């Protein structure tokens, strides 16, 4: 038990450190903006997992609650004011309200029907955001001025460091709250509803009620996440309720792994890194994200959070050789395939833009011409090596004695 408490505390310490340290070391606008974006998506992804991982509800319209919370908070801040640090609470309550109403419509069934209702509702909200300018501000959205709220001590929150402090604090608090929620008997009942709703009904709880409770809680934290974005960019736009945002949080949660608490947080970090850092150097980042997502769903359903323990287990000192080689082959195969895909995608994009603009160079400084066969040869050979390694791994797996490792 003590060991577990220690690792738990370490994880939270790491989480808090990741939030605080980079901001403290490099308090520049770009870094803070990136961290704020990550923090907001982390909260959103964790809230999404309250529905998907805990209760088994797949939603295609989760961003609607985040965005609606943001709009409500923006209107509240503009018309009522108040201290900025308490604004996420407004967003959260608004999100919970909308979530409750949506839940009343959607939770009588689970599975595909629930997913389709959330799709319909998400599309409705996304389309309404463009149609009703008074509530959603039209194209320009609803702006706020951080500094116009009630000051806290010496802080006015116009400065980005102050705003980021609020965001990071709320990210940590929300994560702690959601973690506590997943430890309650309610969450255990939600797990039971996920696994076997008929049995839960036979025991005496209406599965619908549990689902509704979880959807409302998830929407509360989604509203908070939306407000964190609002605080960061000082504007609530129709994009915050878009289906693209819903897709983003879904992808983040699945890539990270829905089976553990911190999985979606890891996914959110990866996704933000891809969409900001990689997007800065490559036009193909969205393609990479798609490939990663499909690869996770097909071959690694436990996500990043599932792969890391597998790796750690294989690389420990007393691991059997077969297991270690198997994992290394797997990792190697992924690396080579990654190289192949990156080459092909970059060359492909270079070729595409040669068609459009005239410059057909990939990889920036290395200037590999898309028409020359060299680049494609690299891609093909990398793919070949990757396939070989995967084949070796498969053979090692079939030779290996002992139980099959699932998820890989």
């Amino acid at each position: 038990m003590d060991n577990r408490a220690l690792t738990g505390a370490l994880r939270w310490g790491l989480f808090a450190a990741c939030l605080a340290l980079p901001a403290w070391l490099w308090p520049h606008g770009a870094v803070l903006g990136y961290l704020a974006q990550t923090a907001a998506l982390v909260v959103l992804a964790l809230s999404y997992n309250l529905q998907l991982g805990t209760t088994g509800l797949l939603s295609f319209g989760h961003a609607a609650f985040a965005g609606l919370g943001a709009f409500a908070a923006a209107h509240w801040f503009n018309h009522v004011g108040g201290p900025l640090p308490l604004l996420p609470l407004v967003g959260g309550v608004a999100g919970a309200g909308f979530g409750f109403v949506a839940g009343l419509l959607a939770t009588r069934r689970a599975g595909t029907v629930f997913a389709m209702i959330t799709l319909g509702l998400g599309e409705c909200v996304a389309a309404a955001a463009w149609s009703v300018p008074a509530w959603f501000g039209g194209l320009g959205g609803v702006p706020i001025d951080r500094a116009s709220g009630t000051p806290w001590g010496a802080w006015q929150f116009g400065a980005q460091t102050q705003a980021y402090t609020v965001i990071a604090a709320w990210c940590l608090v929300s994560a702690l709250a959601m973690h506590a929620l997943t430890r309650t008997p309610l969450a255990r009942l939600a797990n039971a509803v996920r696994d076997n709703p008929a049995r839960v009904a036979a025991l005496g709880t209406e599965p619908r009620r549990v689902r509704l409770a979880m959807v409302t809680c998830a929407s509360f934290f989604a509203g908070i996440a939306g407000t964190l974005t609002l605080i960061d960019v000082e504007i609530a736009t129709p994009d915050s309720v878009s289906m693209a945002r819903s897709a983003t949080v879904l992808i983040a949660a699945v890539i990270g792994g829905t089976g553990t608490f911190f999985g979606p947080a890891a996914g959110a970090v990866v996704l933000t890194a891809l969409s900001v850092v990689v997007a800065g150097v490559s036009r193909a980042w969205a393609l990479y994200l798609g490939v990663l997502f499909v690869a996770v769903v097909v071959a690694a359903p436990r996500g990043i959070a599932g792969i890391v323990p597998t790796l750690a287990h294989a690389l420990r000192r007393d691991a059997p050789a077969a297991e270690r080689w198997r994992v290394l082959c797997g990792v190697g195969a992924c690396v080579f395939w990654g190289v192949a895909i990156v080459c092909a995608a970059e060359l492909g994009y270079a070729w595409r833009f040669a068609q459009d603009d005239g410059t057909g160079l990939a990889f920036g400084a290395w200037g590999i011409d898309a028409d020359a066969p060299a680049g494609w040869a690299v891609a093909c050979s990398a793919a070949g090596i990757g396939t070989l390694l995967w084949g070796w791994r498969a053979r090692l797996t079939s030779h290996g004695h002992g139980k099959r490792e699932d998820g890989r």
Partner: protein
Amino acid sequence: MHAFALQAFNGLSYGLLLFMLSAGLTLIFSVQGVLNFAHASFYMLGAYLGYSIAARAGFWAALVFAPLAVGLLGAGCERWLLRRVQARGGHTSELLLTFGLAYLIGEGAKLLWGLAPLPAPVPPLFDGAPVTVFGLALPRYRLFMMAMSATMLVALGALLRVSRIGLVVRAALAHRAAVEALGYDVPRMMTGLFGAGTALAALAGVIGAPLAVIEPALAETVGSVVFAIVVIGGLGSLGGAFVASLAVGFAQTFAAASDTSLRDIVQWAGIALPDSVAAVSIAQLAPLVPYLLLVAVLVVRPRGLFGERVDG
């Protein structure tokens, strides 16, 4: 009256186009039990491929080869991707996979054909003067498209109901193990049928392309509407998809063409709305029609209008 008839024709043609898409989706759902989120992406792929083929070899070649190619791709996806995921049980993973495929195909299309919208030309055979029926000028290509769509309904319905293949398919859906024991290669059938469903989507794409522009966002805009339709009609019901397609087609066309605003409606009901909301016209809400219908139907009748299976 003239305007009404024209609207009705437009609604009918739009509905039939939607049906062409939802037919393939329904087929896949009937066979696999999975809602293929990537269906509209295969539609878009068909449109793009058809455009490329037509540019080199003409419309009729495109009509044949684009669906073939996309069907093969679809079959491949089923064989190597979907089947692995299905072994895990539960429909969530399948939905996630097809969702990921949709995303991936969209990105692939952006890579191969660029971001700019491509105009697909109407084939010269149908590019003539509109046919006049009862005093209405009806564009030839639209008539062709509607004819194809109706043919598809009849052919699919007949195939599933009457032919032996259809019988085996329906049996496999209910008692897969029994059908396998009878000697049918059920996995191969599933692959074939998935490929057929995606080929149908691509065919719809080739046919529907000249009516609008081809662009990467095509899959999203059309896709969500088609899912809504298939769910409204009842997952797995071809007749339901037909009814729902027409319903959405008519409702959306009439809404888009109407002049009334929310204010007019609520005035009749006696409720007062804030100005900003009341000023919203029905035409502005037209894109919402399929989803409003979807939510309304699902809340009242979770299995859709004619559906048989219910999840969860």
